[in-house]
């Protein structure tokens, strides 16, 4: 019995994991979320911005990290449109181009935000660091036109936005090292305020920047999205996902504990 439990067929574990994700997905249960300080600081910063301020969002993730970062983007953009904070979207990765466009349009449709007045999407330009440095002098030196190829000069919202000076916060949604680029090239050089939302795997890499205040806020993966959704009082994919996460985490924790109990019993018996 104990022997069997110790060397359980991995396929049983697979089935349990599958069930732990499928059943809660079908039932849509939810747990309360505790908001961590780094997420709260991002929220507070945006909350404190006066009407008509500008937030720039970098959609620096590809389809493989969409699961974690899309919900976060959705929550923040909702918050901005509620607050009448204008949003400029852009990306440094070719893969991110369509993702950012889809997301901005989706939230705009839900909230009634108007393109060219409440938000603009610039799309992708190659040469990451040159793009970041170029926008420091003038955004239209890098993006002469937006994603739909409309010249920036013809977009009403961009009339009073030249460079970082008119941007109150940059939020980088990253699955790779783009946050470091923003920090090195725009925070250090142009003193631009930066916040980040990153995938769970690279979160711990970002803590040092939070410590040195090079990042004013940080949202960790799906949990960050759920926390932000709680702050703006609009539960969506993040909250739903985190509840499913809870089951999966409990399952893994339970399995590890079970394995160890079996291990100790076996060792006791051997003695």
């Amino acid at each position, binding site marked *: 019995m104990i022997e069997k439990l110790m060397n359980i067929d991995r396929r049983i574990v697979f089935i349990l994991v599958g069930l732990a994700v499928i059943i809660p997905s079908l039932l849509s249960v939810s747990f309360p979320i505790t908001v961590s300080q780094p997420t709260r600081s991002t929220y507070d910063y945006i909350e404190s911005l006066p009407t008509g301020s500008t937030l720039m969002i970098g959609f620096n993730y590809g389809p*493989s990290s969409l699961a974690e970062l899309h919900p976060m983007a959705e929550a923040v953009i909702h918050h901005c449109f509620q607050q009448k904070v204008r949003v400029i979207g852009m990306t440094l990765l070719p893969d991110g181009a369509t993702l950012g466009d889809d997301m901005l349009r989706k939230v705009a449709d839900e909230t009634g935000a108007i393109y060219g007045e409440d938000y603009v999407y610039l799309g992708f330009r190659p040469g990451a660091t040159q793009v970041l440095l170029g926008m420091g002098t003038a955004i239209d030196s890098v993006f002469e036109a937006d994603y739909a190829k409309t010249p920036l000069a013809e977009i009403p919202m961009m009339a009073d936005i030249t460079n970082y000076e008119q941007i109150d916060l940059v939020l980088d949604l990253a699955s790779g090292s783009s946050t470091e680029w923003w920090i090195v090239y725009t925070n250090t050089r142009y003193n631009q305020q930066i916040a980040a939302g990153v995938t769970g795997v690279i979160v711990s890499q970002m803590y040092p920047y939070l410590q040195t205040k090079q990042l004013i806020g940080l949202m960790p993966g799906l949990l960050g999205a759920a926390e932000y959704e709680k702050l703006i009082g609009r539960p969506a994919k993040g909250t739903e996902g985190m509840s499913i996460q809870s089951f999966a*985490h409990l399952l893994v924790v339970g399995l590890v504990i079970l394995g*160890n109990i079996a291990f100790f019993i076996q060792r006791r018996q051997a003695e």
Partner: protein
Amino acid sequence: MRRQVPLILCFAFGIVMALTEFSPHRFSQWLNKEVIDWTLVIGPFALVLAIATLIQTHWTRIRRRSEYWQYSFLVFIGMIVMVVIGIPLGQRHPVFVWLFRYVQVPMDATMFSLLAFFIASAAYRAFRARTLEATLLLAAALIVMIGNAPVGDLIWNTIIPFGDNLPSAARQWILDNPNLSARRGIILGISLGVISQSIRIILGIERSYLGGVEGD
């Protein structure tokens, strides 16, 4: 010609790239960027090798009727369809986008998501408190996992009367402290290794990339 020239080229390009990183001069910056652009031109040609061996491998399998040889046709079909549509029509063409979105992305994402299963089975099997080290590994993993799930705080707060949200706070502390310092140690060691290897390569001391030490 076979050994000297590659070593000279390696040295020349290596030194130029290392030095131009220190120089803000217009010429240095131009040179630095130009050479990087060159590698972007040179690199893709290596794909010739790749395609040649891929075709060779699967063609041999089909010819010899090795086990599962029929599947090799699928490799050719997949490759040819993508190339025939993608090269003349471009990456933004709707047909190519459709293939990418409904064939490549789902398989990519699903392969990636297998990790959710594997991470659970690896945890179950490997996290046993056999030794002190294994116990530390296990304990740290458990604390972080409980702290990551919202339900961790919920359970703690209802059962235990003190230390509100302790699981998520403990998780944060572990990631900020022991985790960060261990990573720093690893990174420092690796960086020294990377630099010394690069020096050896540029100076022509490390020549393994020429394919074996012998054979002039």
